[in-house]
């Protein structure tokens, strides 16, 4: 199952429609059952089961010592998790909402990210920081930030963002098993997306640092992750009607970054658009575009474009649809790639973008 949003349809006996939220809960449960060192902690994760119910039932099953409600203090939650990791536990911390994680930023940057390094490997930090992130659910201020660029800029952290139900399970298991700290960004608006999924499927376990081609195509590559994957898949379907055959690449892991898969795809298609909700200026797309340009320049037929959120504080919920990159904005960018224009011939960079002429390698056929 490779799409995040899938209809129920036919299901094999062991595969049933499940939501991303359910897959995450199952991942936590399985990890706790397998390893008594795994401790879930955060505000409201106990009796309530988390505000998104991701930790539902864990306190009952494993006791409140292993799934514990903490005082409301994010720096304290993460700071005490550091000490717990020092004593051999594998804390899984919930930050409840993206913007609520900022008070814990100092602990994350000054200690979590660099404890292994400053102690020459003596104090690894095997902890997972789960952050429900991103917009699109009508959240009020401070509930919809895309904060991945801050974490990406911090050496020592792994930064993951699942986009499918199977990955939600497999990547969270991999994050908890990792001996390095993981910022695990859960796209809030995909929590209730469904797919036929079985936790017993070994293919569900996703190695950290590997991107996945979700849709093959030859005209251009849409590079995305997390909440923007369904947008890109929808855009690719829509583009097909106009004769564009788009490849959609799900990064899954922002750190470590999978240059190999990204570059292989872009070298094949010759064109790339990076799509994410985070701001464009100083956002992940700039880094990704630069990496592609450095490595694939001679294969590129057009500049690497970015489709990102505007460079504004996340807007109020009644305006967020104007801010979030949607299918139309992705398709506009694809049109701007102008592979059927005379861009390279007249050197103006202002090609007509018409339908005449032949693209490279039969693109647009």
């Amino acid at each position, binding site marked *: 199952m490779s799409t995040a949003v899938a209809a129920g349809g036919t299901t094999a006996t062991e595969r049933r429609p499940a939501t991303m939220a359910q897959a995450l809960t199952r991942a936590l449960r399985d990890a706790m059952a397998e390893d008594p060192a795994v*401790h879930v902690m955060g505000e409201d994760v106990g009796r309530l089961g988390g505000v998104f119910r991701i930790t539902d039932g864990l306190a009952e099953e494993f006791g409140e*010592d292993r799934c514990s409600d*903490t*005082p409301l*203090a994010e*720096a*304290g939650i*993460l*700071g*005490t*998790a*550091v*000490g*717990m*990791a*020092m*004593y*051999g*536990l594998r*804390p899984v911390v919930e930050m409840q909402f993206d913007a609520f994680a900022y*008070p814990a930023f*100092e*602990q994350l940057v*000054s*200690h979590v990210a*660099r*404890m*292994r*390094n*400053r*102690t*020459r*490997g*003596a*104090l*690894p930090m095997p902890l997972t920081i789960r952050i429900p992130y991103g917009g699109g659910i009508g959240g009020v201020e401070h509930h919809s930030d895309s904060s991945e660029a801050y974490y990406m800029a911090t*050496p*020592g952290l*792994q930064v993951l963002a699942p986009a499918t139900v199977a990955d939600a399970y497999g990547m969270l298991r991999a994050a908890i098993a*990792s*001996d*390095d700290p993981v910022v695990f960004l859960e796209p809030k608006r995909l929590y209730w997306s469904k797919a036929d999924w079985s936790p017993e499927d070994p293919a569900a376990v996703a190695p950290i*640092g590997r991107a996945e081609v979700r849709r093959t195509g030859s005209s251009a590559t849409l590079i995305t992750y997390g909440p923007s994957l369904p947008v890109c898949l929808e855009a690719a379907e829509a583009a097909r009607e106009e004769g564009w055959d788009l490849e959609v690449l799900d990064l899954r892991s922002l*750190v*470590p*970054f999978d*240059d*190999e898969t990204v570059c292989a795809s872009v070298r094949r298609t010759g064109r790339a658009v990076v799509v994410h909700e985070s701001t464009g200026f100083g956002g992940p797309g700039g880094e990704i575009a630069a990496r592609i340009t450095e490595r694939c320049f001679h294969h590129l037929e057009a500049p690497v474009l970015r489709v990102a959120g505007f460079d504004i504080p996340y807007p109020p919920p009644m305006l967020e649809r104007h801010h979030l990159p949607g299918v139309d904005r992705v398709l506009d960018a694809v049109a701007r790639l102008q592979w059927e224009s005379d861009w390279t011939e007249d050197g103006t960079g202002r090609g007509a973008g018409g339908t005449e002429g032949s693209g490279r390698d039969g693109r647009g056929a």
Partner: protein
Amino acid sequence: MTVLEQPGSSRHGSTATGDRPAPPPAWRPRVDPGPLLPDEEPYRVLGTEAAGKVDIALLKRLYEQLVSGRRYNTQATALTRQGRLAVYPSSTGQEACEVAAALVLEERDWLFPSYRDTLAAVARGLDPVQALTLLRGDWHTGYDPHEHRVAPLCTPLATQLPHAVGLAHAARLKGDDVVALAMVGDGGTSEGDFHEALNFAAVWQAPVVFLVQNNGFAISVPLAKQTAAPSLAHKAVGYGMPGRLVDGNDAPALHEVLGEAVARARHGGGPTLVEAVTYRMEAHTNADDATRYRSDAEVEAWRGHDPVALVERELAARDLLTSAYVSATKDAAEEMAGALRERMNADPALDPMDLFAHVYAAPTGQLREQSDLLRAEIEAEGEH
């Protein structure tokens, strides 16, 4: 008089008047804060009747560690002048806090020092040279924290306190009777992490002891501009843990108060906040000019309350300060300093490839590329 007994409180039936609303149904004070409040004066042993009851072996041990600690401080300060240390925040004047913190802990316990607490780490058994790695600048932490159960010397203020709470909490969850002792300065008590650590510790009843070394200044800012609390020990009551006030230059008093707090924590009694009232005799670091913010008279007054001299006086009063004992103690300290000086005069062995070795358990592809670049640069340098 406790807070609950203050006149004018509307929360108690005896003083409530008819026109005031009754307290809300669910409200009740959880604990009488009286027992949590610190004494009015810092607790002292030396110079009081209690001094006579201090065990001779302990008194001598404290003395030897104080003399050695003072010598370590002067030696390390000298090393900054010789360019062998990038910086050294001296704990001269505060040695009693450092020594007592190390001596009250069992081997299985953990110490969480701040950047000024090198001495406590060394008194706990750490190699004096490895303890200075951060300050020399060859790496951030020069020792394996597990070896003597000493967390890395922490430069950001108070951020190591929640680590101590988490470690102590984890130990208790595993059924180990391990105690964590975390050290912080007066300035650090203003940080949010101080508050969060104390709150978590009290809610979890974690076996932690917080030792605040109130040396009067956070670099240049005096205590009066740092807090409006009656004392830093008073902060404990708001979290529901006892606050103790102790003379931070009185080593036996510190040993007793910290020892009680450690025992209490070990036996499930929860955390304690100990404020040690002391004074930093030197500047904040060698880069600071203390004459800009405090008077010579103030420094001189504290010189009369020196932690080494206070113990010496007690030893003398008991006829234990023989010239043979004094010179043996000083010789041992001098030997330690000589060895430290000699080892610090050798350049540390640095491997630039270490820059990439410990960022992640396994280096990312990006880091492998960068380490290849650096290796090539170094090899090219070698060819010239």
